[in-house]
């Protein structure tokens, strides 16, 4: 549904996105992660034909977005971080107006969508009277109007209270199950991404630093919590025997491929290092993400030195 090949975007001297390759297959909920300014919104802007790529090719629903925008976006819906509407008009009128930029939409379809998002009874009120949650529902309604195959959600839970976030999560799941939509979800909320997405891509300073399934993200390294008499001495010893590949936070070690915990303990005992606790550490998306950011920050510094 979405295919990006070697996509870059430069604003002045700054590269917002660099050599981005991305592939979102049909029917998937794909998460796009990254800190503020990582290039997520620019990438989404390019996918929607709002931002011109400096280099690269973007295909949405099989069509080149820069050359065939109308066909590419014909069945695409999008929601942006802060839902904005014509506040002086009713929700219904807003939906009518926005539908006219895609295709003529019968009132029955608008009514159905209004019901689906749970705005029935309030659709003829002015949007200025809507709460943030209602605006988000209206944003979802406008995104669903063109009967989309692909939904692009840029920080849809931004500004919502915990109840609203929960509701949005359930709605996204419903959208995929009931309507079979492909969803690209850009978010800061790692917990949301973990609960919703099947695959993720992580951007850092405009570059993709990871793409894969959530399982891949969690199984990149097997971490073990180690409480020993002298952690520094223990890790030097384990590294010299190539039993571990990495350390973290002064208490975690990453096992080398094929190494089991018992080999670690045997080596430590042999070296006369007291062992108080050894436990396998469950990798969460958050720990994976933070580690990834740390690694990608460290790499340029290593190159400099």
């Amino acid at each position, binding site marked *: 549904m979405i295919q990006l090949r070697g996509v870059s975007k430069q604003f002045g001297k700054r590269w917002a996105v660099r050599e981005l390759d991305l592939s979102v297959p049909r029917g998937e909920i794909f998460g796009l992660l990254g800190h503020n300014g990582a290039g997520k919104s620019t990438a989404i802007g390019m996918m929607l034909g709002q931002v011109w790529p400096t280099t690269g090719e973007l295909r949405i629903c099989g069509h080149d977005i820069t050359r065939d925008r109308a066909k590419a976006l014909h069945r695409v819906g999008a929601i942006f971080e802060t839902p904005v509407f014509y506040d002086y008009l009713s929700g219904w009128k807003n939906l009518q107006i926005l539908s*006219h930029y895609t295709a003529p939409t019968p009132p029955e379809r608008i009514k159905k969508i209004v019901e689906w998002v749970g705005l029935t009874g309030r659709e003829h009120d002015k949007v200025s009277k809507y709460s943030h949650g209602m605006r988000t529902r209206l944003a979802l309604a406008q995104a669903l109007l063109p009967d989309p195959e692909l939904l692009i959600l840029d920080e849809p839970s931004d500004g919502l209270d915990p109840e609203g976030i929960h509701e949005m999560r359930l709605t996204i799941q419903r959208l995929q199950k009931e309507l079979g939509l492909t969803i690209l979800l850009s978010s800061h909320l790692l917990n949301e991404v973990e609960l919703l997405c099947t695959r993720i891509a992580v951007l850092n300073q405009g570059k993709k630093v990871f793409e894969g399934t959530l399982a891949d993200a969690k199984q990149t390294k097997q971490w073990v919590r180690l409480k020993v008499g002298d952690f520094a001495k223990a890790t030097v010893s384990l590294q010299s025997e190539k039993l571990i590949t990495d350390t973290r936070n002064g208490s975690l070690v990453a096992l080398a491929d094929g190494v089991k915990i018992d080999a670690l303990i045997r080596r430590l005992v042999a070296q006369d290092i007291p062992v108080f606790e050894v436990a396998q550490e469950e990798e969460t998306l958050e720990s994976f993400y933070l580690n990834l950011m740390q690694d990608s920050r460290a790499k340029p510094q290593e190159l400099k030195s």
Partner: protein
Amino acid sequence: MFLLQLRSELAKLFGKKRTYIGFGAFLLSQNVMLLAFRYSNWEKGTARLLEGNGYVATEFISTLTVAVLMLIPQILLLMPLYVMLVGGDLVAKEAEDGTLRMILSRPISRFRLLFTKWLTGVIFAAILVVSLGAMALFFARCWFEWKGMFIFIPIPGGQPIFNVMSAGEGLKYYALAHVLLAVNACTMLSLAFMFSCFNMKPAAATILALSFLFLSVVMEGMPFFEDWKEFALTHHFRAWILVFAKPMPLAQIAEALCVLAGVNVTAFVIGATHFHMRDIKS
């Protein structure tokens, strides 16, 4: 589909309260001017001018005469302001509010969106001019009789327009003058619209367009630019006055219309080209 999009743009424009500020301002200023004409030396001065040229003043101090007198200051001051206020809002306000991003996530081309917006602005400008003329006639009729029309409009650096005509003939020329005034209003709107297509605040687009007009007026008035006054946009805005001249200088009016049409197209093309190249970001 295009008509539906145009209807949507019109609904957005006429759904906003600020769109009606111009109509309200015209309403107020016309009544103030009527009172000033009636109760100051303005009416007496007009009567003296008529009598000095051998006409019976009571036959020509009429609805049409007063309506045109009221129009002049409003066209010079209020019309550019309100038309450019709307023109400057057309694209820049949507970009500022963030609704433009939502529209452009839909399969409408940027050119088509701009053309629809520009056409909406043109319709607004035409409605504003027609309302201005109709209101002037209505309020003038409340105070003055329906009789012959007298026109005296001084033109800076040129011969003043002086003419008297029957009410029927006067109404015909009054209507024609409004067609030309609508072209002026469209040109003003196109200028503000062009600036609005650039990455700037709506107020900045309006101010830039007004400054452009102001510069044109100043340059036209400077003796140094006497030979180049035809390059000043405001010079061509006077075509509506020429309608009342006897004989009517058709060639000059046609020339002005061609220049204004050219300015409209140029402003639209510059605006559309820049808008097409622009990145739309939040």
